């Protein structure tokens, strides 16, 4: 391997509102996602945290009527600039979804998918990259003897780790995770959480979660969002180091939420 550069990159959200048609789903967001850290976005359902996350890699562009006001940037690149190459953006901002969504192909081909889209590497290199990604997602030991089997034969937890492997195989700058454990059993959840803690050493990680313990365990920074009762738009209530948010919340709504009184 010749010249290499570190990849983790900062993502910044500035004065941003997100709309579905005429409805403002999220308003006035200012956030900064640090490299080599896990940022957790928490908040009650309907507060727009998923919408927020899905706007970072423009996957929400697929939703009819979705619109963004404000500036979201990856490094110094404006994500929603008309000149932005959306495909390249998504190569740089990987995503893991709420429900595991392996492609109906072999385990190997799932992980290799992103690697073979452009300038596919030599077979030996490809095999090595797939193995690296599977090791990183703590799945290698379980699947190394059945790489040719259909991915759909794996258990739910394994499928989700496979999707993580697929997302990190292409070495993105940022990794987005949309409630990655909500469809998993507790043991799988624990494995994925350990994985997230490892992954932050390589990436900028942003995770949306419903689960307070998960945010407390796996994240460095926590963003608390809530819905404004007046206009039903989601907004940020409080941002801070995870320890502070959970032990010493400044805002009464945050306190109520992290202590489990509503949500």
């Amino acid at each position: 391997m010749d010249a290499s550069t570190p990849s983790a990159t900062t993502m910044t959200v500035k004065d941003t509102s997100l709309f579905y048609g005429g409805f403002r789903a999220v308003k006035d967001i200012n956030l900064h996602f640090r490299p080599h850290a896990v940022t957790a976005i928490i908040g009650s359902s309907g507060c727009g945290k998923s919408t927020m996350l899905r706007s970072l890699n423009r996957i929400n562009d697929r939703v009819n009527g979705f619109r963004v006001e404000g500036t979201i940037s990856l490094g110094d690149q404006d994500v929603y600039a008309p000149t932005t190459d959306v495909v390249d953006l998504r190569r740089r901002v990987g995503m893991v979804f709420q429900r595991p969504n392996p492609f109906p192909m072999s385990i190997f081909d799932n992980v290799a998918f992103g690697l073979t889209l452009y300038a596919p590497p030599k077979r030996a290199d490809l095999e090595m990259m797939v193995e690296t990604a599977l090791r990183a997602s703590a799945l290698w030991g379980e699947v190394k003897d059945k790489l040719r089997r259909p991915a759909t034969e794996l258990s739910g937890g394994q499928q989700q780790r496979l999707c993580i492997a697929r997302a990190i195989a292409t070495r993105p700058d940022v990794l987005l995770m949309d409630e990655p454990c909500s469809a998993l059993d507790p043991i799988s959840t624990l494995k994925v959480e350990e994985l997230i803690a490892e992954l932050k050493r390589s990436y900028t990680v942003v995770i949306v979660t419903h689960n307070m313990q998960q945010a407390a365990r796996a994240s460095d920074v926590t963003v608390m969002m809530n819905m404004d009762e007046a206009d039903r738009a989601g907004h940020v209530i409080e941002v801070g180091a995870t320890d502070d948010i959970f032990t010493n919340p400044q805002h009464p709504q945050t306190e109520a939420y992290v202590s489990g009184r509503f949500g």
Partner: protein
Amino acid sequence: MRLRQGIVAQSIFFTAAAIVALSTAALLLFTGSRGLAVFGYMNPAEFFLSGSWNQNDENFGVLPLLAGSLLTVGLALLISGPLALGVSIFMVEIAPEPVRRVMRTVVELFAALPSVIYGLLGLTLVVPWVRESFGGGLGKGILAASIVLVFMTQPTIVSIAEDALRALPESLREGALAVGATRWQMIWRVLLPAARPGLITAVVLGTGRAVGETIAVQMVIGNITSRMPKSLLTGATTMPAAIVTQLPEATSPEHRAALIMVAFLLLVITFSLIAAVRAAGSRGKARPTTRRRPSPAAQTAAVKGGD
């Protein structure tokens, strides 16, 4: 009294359902028995292996009919399959909703056009075009028939392929795009393989549609039964075309039996296609799909048998 009424109603409805089932059985039974009677006049080898079907010398070899059907349908599907696939991809992945609705109506209208109108247009547009572009002959033949069939099979293939693509979960599309695939890479590498069982079903049912098509093909193929098809440009025939051309005038019992046997073969072919689709369908059932209820007109588009 109320109870009696209920029982009477139920038995009436059951009878109606039974009529449907019995019709299918009767169809097989009557065409089968009357058709197989042909082997009382000639041995199966003569029927299946002779390359000539000629009522004047009472020689009924089914090969020219089979070959004509095979070539016509094969050639038609070669063009119609990719075309229909492109249209269904456009409808599901590219077109905005209003455009998609227009396309749906267009496809349904292709299904609604009577065969005889396809035949008429084949006669006035396709046949002269073939004659002038490829030179020589009358222009009637396998090529002209295939071109007509390309359009007649569109509704069947498009509507089923469209359903198959639409049934794919949105999460597959998001998954592919999220790792940086272009839309076409998503379609080609993820969606088409994932929808393969449905797409194969679409083509198989399109084949059934094309194999059974009668009048439109009969009007443009030239109806030469006495020899094997010589080229794509000269006169030939297909199984249904031969039946409709000759059965009304067939007087000898041998000729009639031979034609009914051809109908029975058609029946066997279409039933096998359905059985193949069913077998494939029950194997592919493991994946849960959310099926949209197709509109009644779309159902006609999908099931309309050849005229």
